[in-house]
């Protein structure tokens, strides 16, 4: 199963607050349980482990309806020769410096330490995220102009 597909599934589970989900396709099986449970994935391909956080619900009594940003519990394991780039801040993910500009990187782009990969904007700070390693972008995990949480995986880099 492609990462892109898993990403789409995660998004739908979040949107509809589905607690438990499983899918079998031939020898591939994916099971996702929300609330910290580990996702099982059995397949010939290397396994990925994903957990989904509960929707934010614990709120301070003095601010009954305000949900402060929380650190997500989602984790995504990658292979030994891969590096996971995560968002260092809560904000909005942008692939390009402006709507008219081409994206900083695409899947397949060769990157090195210091290459700007994307912008995460928070409170009108346009924060350029630099790559920490040398390699090639192998997966893009977030769509343009979507919100990202602190620590949320945004790119997978195949290490050089």
């Amino acid at each position, binding site marked *: 199963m492609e990462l892109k597909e898993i990403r789409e599934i995660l998004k739908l589970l979040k949107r509809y607050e589905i607690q438990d989900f499983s899918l079998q396709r031939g020898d591939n099986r994916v099971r996702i349980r929300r609330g910290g449970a580990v996702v099982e994935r059995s397949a010939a391909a290397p396994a990925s482990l994903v957990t989904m956080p509960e929707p934010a619900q614990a709120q301070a009594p003095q601010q009954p309806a305000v949900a402060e940003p929380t650190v997500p519990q989602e984790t995504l394991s990658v292979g030994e020769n891969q590096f996971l780039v995560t968002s260092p*801040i809560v*904000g909005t993910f942008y692939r390009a410096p402006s709507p008219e500009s081409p994206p900083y990187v695409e899947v397949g782009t060769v990157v090195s330490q210091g290459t700007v990969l994307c912008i995460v*904007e*928070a*409170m009108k700070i*346009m924060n350029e995220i630099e790559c920490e390693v040398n390699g090639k972008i192998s997966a893009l995990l977030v769509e343009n102009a979507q919100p990202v949480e602190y620590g949320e995986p945004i790119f997978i880099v195949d290490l050089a």
Partner: protein
Amino acid sequence: MTSERMILHHYGEVSSTNDLIKEMADKGAPEWTTVVAQSQSAGRGRMGRRWHSPRGNLYLSVLFRPEILPSELPRMSILSSLAVFMALYRDKTPLNLKWPNDILLDGRKIAGVLLEGRTQGDRVDYVVLGIGINLKLQETDQAGELAGKTAAVEEFDSLIGVEDILDDLSRTLQKYCFAYRGSSWTAARAEWSKHAAWGRRSMIVDGIERVEGCPVKLTEGGSLILETDRGLITVQSGDLVEA
């Protein structure tokens, strides 16, 4: 020329003071390196939007290398707008702040801030603070989409010059832009809140999403709490416009 700590580089016209400072930052320029320009041919606002930059106003960018975590960067938005506000503020002048970093005179924009950060992992390499201050009302501000939306310093202080404002900015940037933690952050947040326009029915517009409500206060991190029909929500990004 210096304005206390600022290391000033004066230019006539540049493409964008932020772009120039970012080039300098990549080559290792020190903190407080400052580019001041008389006009910008490609002045930018948020997400590459054009910032109209004719001669007669003040355009500058300042380089900071704060020892701050990326997750604390949004605080710089509050702190830098407070610094610009305090540099312009005079008693009884109807200046106020609009979340997260606009400075308004009677509801019209008099100054704006564009912050660009560069981070690698959990390390902040630098932060560029771009500031545009309208000194004089321009003919071009009176027509088209800017009509009635812009204000200028000359409306409340016709004698102040660029050098005076740079001196004031140097002092206020020094005072507020490093107040990102502890009691100094708490005090700066309170100061920002004191000068903000609260309670006006507003809309947050973020791409195609729109949420209507009244801004009520800042969170500990500087995000905006909006009171909506569905209750209180926390806003991280977007444009705040009057409903």
